[in-house]
């Protein structure tokens, strides 16, 4: 299991938000997470990339117990997880290509080569590589965030409302990128309240849909 929750719970400053999470995310699986605004979708993803720690129960990510991880270990594990934030942030003073290459260059691991060009054209930003992030449209930012999330060949890709700012055509294109990555063996977890997106995906991959209701994470009904 790449992500394994056991009786996990989390919250902010004493108030419980999610509880009794029992969930296994298998390698190579495709998950959707849905639920009303404010139900805790973003918080759930934060658990998955260790920005939030479970207050109860256990959580194992890529085989390691998050409670036992040192700060450096967390950083190293994050380099195996690609995250697309709900409001994607960048280093506003660096051009787009440097921002997208950041997961590769930050720890001096490797320099981006031709992959970067491929990736940029794959997300349709080949012509914008020199632009500064504040000059990008909302949709361009979201695609740039996707490119940054996947450049390090992560095993897990977490996307928080990846289609929030973009039109339906662009949303489908983005979804296809994620499905393609899943076919290459990556585990994908998308938080969204866009049911049309989930339906569109279900026709192409065996996606599991989870729903947050009353602080519990449960499988959604088959008909959504």
């Amino acid at each position, binding site marked *: 299991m790449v992500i394994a929750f056991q009786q996990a719970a989390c919250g902010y400053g004493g108030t419980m938000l999610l509880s009794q999470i029992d969930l296994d995310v298998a390698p190579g699986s495709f998950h959707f997470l849905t639920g009303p605004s404010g139900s805790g979708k973003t918080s759930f993803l934060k658990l998955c*990339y*260790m*920005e*939030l*720690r479970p207050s109860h129960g256990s959580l194992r990510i890529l085989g390691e117990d998050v409670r036992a991880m040192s*700060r*450096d270990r967390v*950083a*190293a*594990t*994050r*380099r195996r*997880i690609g*995250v697309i*934030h709900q409001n994607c*942030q*960048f*280093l*506003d*003073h*660096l051009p787009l290509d440097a921002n997208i290459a*950041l*997961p590769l*260059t*930050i*720890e*001096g691991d490797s*320099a981006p080569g031709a992959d970067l060009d491929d990736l940029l054209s794959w997300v349709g930003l080949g012509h914008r590589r020199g632009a500064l992030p504040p000059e990008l449209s909302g949709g361009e930012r979201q695609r740039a965030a996707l490119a*940054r999330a996947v450049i*390090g060949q992560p095993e897990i890709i977490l996307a928080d409302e990846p289609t929030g700012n973009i039109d339906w055509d662009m949303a489908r294109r983005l979804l296809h990128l994620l499905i393609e990555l899943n076919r290459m063996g990556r585990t994908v977890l998308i938080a969204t309240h866009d049911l049309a997106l989930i339906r569109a995906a279900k026709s192409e991959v065996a996606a599991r849909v989870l729903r947050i209701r009353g602080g519990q994470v449960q499988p959604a009904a088959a008909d959504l």
Partner: protein
Amino acid sequence: MRLPSLFRTERSPGSVVPPSGFTARLLVLTAAAMAFLAVFSLALALAAGRMAERWSQALSQTATVRIMAHQGEEAAATRAVLAILETTPGIAAARALTLKEQRALLEPWLGPGLAVESLPLPQLVEVTEAASGFDAEGLRLRLAAEVPGAVLDDHTRWRRPLAAAAGRLRAFGLLAVALITVALAALVTLAAQSALAANAQVIEVLRLVGARDVTIARAFTRRFTLRTLAGAGAGTALGMLGVWMVRTRAGEEVVLTGLGFEGAQWALALLIPPMAGVVAFWATRTAALASLRRIT
């Protein structure tokens, strides 16, 4: 952390933090001012140290007895004085100066070729004080009673407080250097903290892509260390130039113009920029790691 990584430029993590023109210039300027002050404090401490040493050395041998006697009675008076000194506790040795020695003492003042013999010169007796010291007042009374015209010049009495004052001046100089170091550390810490706060978004992005704390901290330490080094380098150069300009030629040195470095002491001043760099590195790193540990 390896120091050479500070100077890596290609794809250096320094560039992940946006430049901050005004604060940067302010830090460079302050580092320069502090290094300048440090050079002067150091020069003061070293000069005071030399002064204290010279006066302490002089202390051990500078009591003299001056004998003014009537013509023909000089030899007898000198013998009497030597006899008294021999029996005075606390005096290690006493020796009458020869005429040649006395002439050598006067030459700097009256010029060579002077017929010293024709002058009514007092006979000088050099008194070497033992470590225990002697009772100057008692000796003075005894001399006055037994050899009229013999006067004790006890230089130690006015040199000792001067030597002590010079020693305190040196301590002040060193204290000033220490305070400047502490102030620099505090200042760099404040500057680093404001930079960390201003770059909260940058830090969040870096953590998201899996940067370790030391990597993020390095982006800041590198920048602050280099700026402090640059500022301190300029300030030290200016300070050394200033000290060099108030220097004196050998032998001219008195209390005020004695400010300066001698020989290897110049190298000591050259240690100021690297020391400032080390202080800045340490202060920034501590501030950065502490503030990073506060976020999950």
